[in-house]
């Protein structure tokens, strides 16, 4: 709330001494509002009280229902006054109080009277108030007046009715749509604002009628539009019409392009920008079309008004994402914006330059950015760091200067999110640019010497443990890691111990020295650190001699925990201390099937730290271990691929079931993860009855029953099929869950002895071609493509029919093949009419496959595709074509 001003120095104006609202208090103002009930109204006093009420409301003060009702009823008494100024305040107050439906009736007649008043201004205001507080039934009563008002000769009255219409369209569309004739007439009004409001309303009424919008645009682009605001609306609607109409096939001309181009010469800046933006956003815009728009935007880059500079650089930043070359002419102007006082503008300029810059300008740009970074807020810095990361991936040869830049800013002050963004970027660069690895790791080592964030220290230590031992001289990292054991908190110390152990396991020559260090950790003050040191000294084995570490130990150190933490936690809570030790193998391996809504939550961006981008190998490892522990599947050989879980039930049903498809060379195993969500039931002998009549090449060999499925404790049942060896057989399977259900007494938790057999229909499941393909990326597609050679290359062309967009076509084909998009080529620039997407994968039989997809889309949205496949075996290349041909 505003603080009353205290007495200031004597030389200040007297008027500044006290606030008229000094000590204002709601209760007192509500008391004052009783003057509204006086038989002799004092208009001035009443206006003052209303002002106080408005002040309270504008400060975020709220009135209780009773208080609001009381004030509202009191305010309605003021309609008796003939004072014009007071009446205006009354209108505002009623709108602010937004009376409830049962209270509205008290003012309706007064407002209706005003709406028919001879005084125009009463009419206009009464319309605005009525429309604000009205409901559907009242609206039909006043509809006639509103229609008249729309074509009223007083522009204020007409605008009031039109703007009311825009609001009412949300709640009572069927009524407002009946006004389109009057609104159409108002569009021709000579009053600029009436035309603006009428145009907005008319478009909203007709927005789903393409022909009507097209007619509206055609007539207005030929006629006169009186206000810049209306002109902006017209440009927007024109863009919509352009999007929906084809380009002239003979001349290549786009309808209405001339209109947009003409608007670039309008006297209002607002209109120029709107037209420039509309042109840059045209689908498949050509450089000839783009040039005039870019030229005007470039002029605005040096405008004295920050808003115009911001608008220009924001638009160019967007253009740079899809047409970086078109923006390069503006680079010099944009470079001068790096020192712009407005940091939003400077950040946009830098990120644009990072997109449009070429390899030779990188160094110069980095110098400019270095000066800039010190005086912007963290949120802007993060944007810049992300842009630099993309730039480095684009120009890998420039990694040295970009990595240096990142390490320099890592040393400077900054909050957690900013530091995390930098660390993530360095990690991604280390992973994607092999040459950057050693330098990058050292930068991270230096960072943890003075890192205030435990989370980042532990993440870096973990990453060092994986990457450090693979470098040419792993010993140089040990000092940094061991320093942590002396200088940091227990969490970081424990991480450092694990990292040391990883070096010991991987680098045999370092093992004796690691042992010495680990032994010192046995005297740490923290339990966890001591426990880890003890554990690793025992597991590494060899008693500190230079011996090779056995595979099990490496698996233990580098493998991830294959038990979901939630399940482990539940099992540990249920474990009762006894003679029998806790058995980690008894912990259920499968995560409870999650409600669908949760899965749809937007995924986090890959952070860089942790798992590789091609998917977490830990899950595959976990599946492999789980399957190999089941004797029936022991002779199936090496697991080729496990699919992501496919939901077979709707969210929130009694039994939640999802299935994971495990592909072997000659077998397919369906792992059904079941969860019983009914506390009063225990399920036993749970199995899935699979009908494979639509999957001819598959024959069922094993069905493994789940003995017991208690409430909320996930379990698995399996069905295995045999299929022809190495053949990517496909088919459809229908599934029925079968079980014995027993009642459970919720108080004792005991189940009845007798159960009833029951079944539960599940969704169908399909095995598709993509199941036989592993998503495995390559870091440099071109190299991989060329080294594969053209011997087994197969090229063919396909028509994909009409598609929503190129993006949709690209994702449809990538999903059909189940391959990994490389080098970000799955992203189609918004206006492209052609696109190349690169895919890589490993096909069943462990054969590498590379695919180059070239797409083109024409005006009628027909998509054509050229598919080139290279693989190690021509039959595989043919098989890929077959998948596409039959998909």
């Amino acid at each position: 709330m505003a603080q009353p001003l205290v007495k200031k120095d004597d030389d200040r104006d007297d008027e500044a001494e006290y606030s008229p609202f000094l000590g204002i208090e709601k209760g007192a103002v509500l008391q004052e509002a009783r003057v509204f009930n006086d038989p002799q109204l004092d208009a001035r006093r009443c206006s003052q009280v209303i002002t106080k009420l408005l002040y309270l409301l504008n400060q975020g003060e709220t009135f209780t229902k009773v208080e609001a009702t009381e004030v509202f009823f009191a305010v309605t008494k003021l309609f008796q006054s003939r004072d014009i100024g007071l009446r205006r305040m009354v209108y505002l107050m009623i709108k602010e109080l937004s009376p409830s439906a049962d209270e509205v009736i008290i003012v309706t007649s007064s407002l209706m009277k005003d709406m028919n008043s001879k005084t125009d201004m009463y009419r206009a205001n009464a319309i605005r108030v009525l429309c604000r507080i009205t409901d559907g039934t009242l609206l039909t009563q006043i509809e006639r007046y509103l229609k008249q008002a729309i074509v009223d000769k007083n522009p204020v009255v007409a605008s009031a009715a039109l703007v009311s219409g825009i609001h009412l369209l949300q709640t009572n569309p069927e009524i407002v749509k009946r006004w389109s004739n009057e609104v159409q007439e108002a569009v021709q009004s000579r009053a600029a604002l009436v035309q603006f409001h009428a145009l907005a309303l008319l478009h909203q009424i007709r927005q789903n009628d393409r022909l009507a919008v097209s007619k509206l645009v055609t007539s207005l682009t030929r006629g006169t539009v009186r206000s810049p605001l209306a002109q902006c609306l017209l440009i927007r609607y024109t863009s919509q019409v352009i999007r929906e109409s084809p380009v002239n096939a003979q001349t290549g001309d786009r309808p209405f392009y001339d209109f947009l181009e003409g608007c670039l010469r309008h006297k209002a800046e607002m209109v120029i920008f709107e037209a420039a933006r509309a042109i840059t956003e045209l689908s498949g815009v050509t450089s000839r079309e783009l040039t005039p728009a870019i030229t005007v935007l470039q002029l605005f880059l040096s405008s004295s008004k920050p808003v115009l500079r911001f608008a220009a650089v924001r638009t160019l930043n967007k253009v740079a994402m899809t047409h970086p070359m078109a923006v390069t002419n503006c680079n010099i102007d944009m470079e001068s914006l790096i020192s712009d006082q407005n940091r939003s503008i400077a950040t946009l300029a830098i990120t644009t330059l990072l997109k449009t810059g070429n390899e030779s300008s990188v160094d110069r740009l980095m110098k400019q950015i270095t000066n800039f970074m010190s005086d912007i807020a963290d949120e802007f810095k993060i944007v810049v760091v992300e842009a630099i990361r993309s730039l480095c991936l684009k120009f890998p040869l420039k990694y040295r200067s970009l990595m240096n830049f990142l390490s320099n800013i890592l040393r400077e002050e900054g909050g957690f999110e900013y530091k995390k963004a930098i660390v993530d970027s360095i990690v991604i660069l280390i992973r994607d640019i092999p040459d950057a690895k050693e330098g990058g790791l050292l930068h991270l080592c230096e960072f943890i010497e003075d890192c205030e964030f435990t989370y980042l220290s532990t993440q870096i230590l973990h990453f060092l443990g994986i990457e450090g031992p693979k470098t040419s001289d792993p010993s140089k990292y040990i000092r940094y890691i061991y320093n942590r054991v002396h200088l940091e908190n227990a969490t970081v110390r424990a991480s450092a111990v694990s990292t040391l152990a990883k070096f010991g396991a991987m680098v045999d020559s370092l093992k004796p020295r690691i042992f010495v260090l680990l032994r010192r950790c046995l005297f740490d003050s923290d339990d966890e650190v001591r426990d880890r040191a003890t554990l690793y000294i025992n597991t590494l084995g060899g008693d500190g001699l230079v011996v090779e570490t056995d595979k099990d130990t490496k698996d233990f150190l580098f493998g991830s925990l294959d038990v979901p933490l939630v399940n482990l936690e539940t099992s540990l809570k249920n474990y009762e201390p006894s003679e029998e030790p806790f058995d980690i193998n008894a912990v259920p391996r499968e995560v409870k099937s999650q409600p669908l809504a949760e899965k749809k939550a937007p995924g986090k961006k890959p952070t860089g730290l942790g798992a590789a981008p091609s998917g977490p190998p830990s899950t595959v490892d976990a599946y492999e271990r789980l399957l190999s522990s089941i004797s029936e599947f022991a002779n199936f050989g090496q697991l080729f691929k496990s699919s992501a879980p496919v939901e077979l039930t709707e969210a929130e049903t009694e039994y939640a079931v999802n299935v994971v498809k495990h592909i072997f060379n000659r077998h397919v195993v369906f792992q059904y993860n079941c969860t019983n969500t009914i506390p009063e039931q225990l399920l036993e002998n749970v199995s899935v009855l699979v009908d494979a009549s639509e999957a001819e090449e598959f024959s069922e060999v094993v069905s493994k029953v789940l003995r017991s499925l208690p409430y909320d404790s996930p379990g698995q049942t399996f069905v295995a099929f045999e299929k022809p060896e190495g053949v990517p057989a496909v088919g459809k399977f229908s599934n029925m869950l079968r079980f014995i259900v027993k009642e459970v007494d919720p108080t004792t938790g005991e189940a009845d002895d007798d159960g009833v057999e029951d079944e539960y229909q599940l969704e169908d499941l399909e095995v598709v071609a993509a199941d036989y393909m592993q998503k495995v990326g390559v870091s440099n597609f071109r190299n991989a493509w060329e080294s594969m050679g053209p011997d087994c290359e197969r090229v063919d062309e396909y028509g994909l029919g009409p598609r929503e967009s190129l993006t949709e076509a690209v994702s449809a084909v990538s999903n059909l093949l189940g391959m990994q998009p490389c080098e970000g080529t799955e992203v189609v620039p918004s206006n492209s009419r052609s696109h190349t997407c690169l895919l890589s994968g490993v096909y069943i039989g462990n054969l590498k496959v590379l695919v180059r997809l070239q797409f083109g889309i024409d005006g009628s949205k027909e998509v054509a595709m050229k598919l080139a496949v290279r693989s190690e075996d021509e039959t595989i290349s043919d098989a890929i074509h077959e998948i596409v041909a039959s998909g």
Partner: protein
Amino acid sequence: MILAVLFANLEGNILVERFNGVPAEERLHWRSFLVKLGAENLKGVKNEELLVACHKSVYIVYTVLGDVSIYVVGKDEYDELALAEVIFVITSSVKDVCGKPPTERLFLDKYGKICLCLDEIVWKGLLENVDKDRIRRLIRMKPPTDF
């Protein structure tokens, strides 16, 4: 949609706060965000010089007028340019009502009139009137002169 119009004094205390389509629980966040933005950037800025920022998909145009800072927040069609238009109307009307760039005291003295001006300029998130002379007449319930 114009999401918010906010006036604050030099110390960052709110004088007028009007939100449209912003959930109640987000208002406090917006208020503190805007006041912080002003505190960081408005020092030494000339009267009516417009500053601009964006926060996610929302645009903010703000300025200072006398002892009062003014913030306008919008999204979609109310981008930085449209908001510049809105804030221009607001500053001209406030100057018109107060006769000069207002001190805080003067602003509060004319509080009722300023509320009426805002009511004429922004109606539930839509820009309604753009001409200060016309607004001056409308708040006194006089028809516009060009009519």
